[in-house]
């Protein structure tokens, strides 16, 4: 019961953390580009404003998809905080991602359609990586339970450094950052306007934005599993990871999906398999 209440509190705090993270991200990105940048609280202003806009509904599927996306993302975060099963968490997360695609496919806009197709390809790229990472964790701990990870004495990073890099690929895709911002991205200067998000507006866009914050926190939470032994180490790992993501975003051009599939699946899977073999041998 106590874990459940703690998890609920964690769930409530997640959007706050996610929003602040997005704000810091935008500020740092601006500074990297020699700009002054928006206030740190900017993402909250954006979401509040979107909540206050008049809703424009294209069809009910789209709205339903938005709700399911947010709910499943929140549920995944809740499962994470309850230190539940990694595989269950993975499936819940996938449901959210699938419904994001369903929402985009349900509208007639060609931008959303192409965006949905690309989102599917992105899922094809990052989901095997996440699964392999989970397999690695289960090989190291003996089970798919997050609780068992916390029971370990040594940080996972020491035994699975290459899987962490593979998770980094997934993180870049999930964060919608260059070079993988091909289906939707936050700065909208792209060939698909905002891809899967094109046809959403007002409160529903705000929902998707909040869902995205959940996703980011969840993936960062998975990253944090790699150094669970000390809070300082965990925070340092996350800060370094996120800073690297922002840097990569600013020094890369956007790539195309064939390149993404080749690169992510090729390099990512080779790295992971190598790491799995290493785990198996030791």
């Amino acid at each position, binding site marked *: 019961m106590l874990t459940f209440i703690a998890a609920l509190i964690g769930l409530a705090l997640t959007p706050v953390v996610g929003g602040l993270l997005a704000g810091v991200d*935008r500020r740092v990105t*601006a500074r990297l*580009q*020699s*700009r*002054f*940048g*928006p*206030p740190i609280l*900017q993402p*909250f*202003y*954006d*979401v*509040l*404003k*979107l*909540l*206050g*806009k*008049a*809703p*424009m509904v294209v069809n009910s599927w789209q709205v339903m998809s938005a709700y399911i996306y947010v709910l499943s993302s929140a549920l995944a975060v809740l499962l994470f905080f309850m230190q539940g099963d990694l595989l269950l968490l993975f499936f819940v997360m996938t449901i959210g991602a699938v419904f994001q695609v369903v929402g985009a496919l349900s509208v007639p806009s060609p931008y959303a359609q192409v965006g949905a197709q690309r989102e599917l390809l992105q899922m094809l790229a990052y989901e095997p990586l996440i699964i392999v990472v989970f397999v690695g964790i289960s090989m190291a701990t003996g089970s798919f339970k997050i609780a068992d990870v916390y029971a370990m004495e040594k940080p996972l990073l020491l035994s699975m450094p290459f899987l962490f890099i593979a998770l980094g690929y997934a993180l870049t895709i999930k964060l919608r950052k260059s070079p993988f911002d091909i289906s939707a991205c936050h*700065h*909208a*200067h792209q060939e698909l*306007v*905002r891809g899967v*998000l*094109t*046809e*959403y*507006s*007002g409160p529903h*866009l705000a929902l998707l934005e909040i869902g995205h914050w959940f996703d980011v926190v969840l993936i960062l939470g998975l990253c944090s599993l790699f150094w669970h032994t000390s809070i300082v180490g965990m925070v340092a790992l996350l800060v370094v990871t996120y800073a690297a993501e922002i840097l990569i975003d600013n020094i890369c051009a956007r790539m195309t999906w064939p390149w993404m599939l080749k690169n992510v699946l090729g390099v990512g899977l080779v790295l992971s398999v190598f790491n799995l073999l290493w785990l198996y041998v030791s």
Partner: protein
Amino acid sequence: MGLLENWINKGRLKSPWVVHFDCGSCNGCDIEVLACLTPVFDVERFGIINVGNPKHADVLLVTGTVNHRNKKVLKNIYDQMPDPKAVIAIGACGTSGGVFRECYNVVGGVDQVIPVDVYVPGCPAKPDAIIDGVVTALDVVKAKLGLGEMPKVTVID
């Protein structure tokens, strides 16, 4: 409820997402609008993002004269924007038609087709003037929400 309302209003004033529509401009004002987004002027300080999608936007920046073909597009974009919204007409062409008022294919300023909240004069309007225009538009929005007074028209100062 009052608190949430307050927050939403604050969000409205702090996060005006713009969509820029080039409505037959000579590119002079367009590149100045783009220049506003770039490091030297950086309107993201005010929470402004160029979203490129009318469904996400709160403010419509229109540059250039309206002609018979793009007036439908302009109207369409305006209709796609969810309320509350504001329109800023930029440059001599956007406000009145400028030098092209008398051309055969020109309808005139943006206000011939959609209601305009702020007029930014200049040919082309400087980025400074465009920033002033957005600030004035926010004042107009504020006045419409009942939170402040309409900005005054200063003819000679």
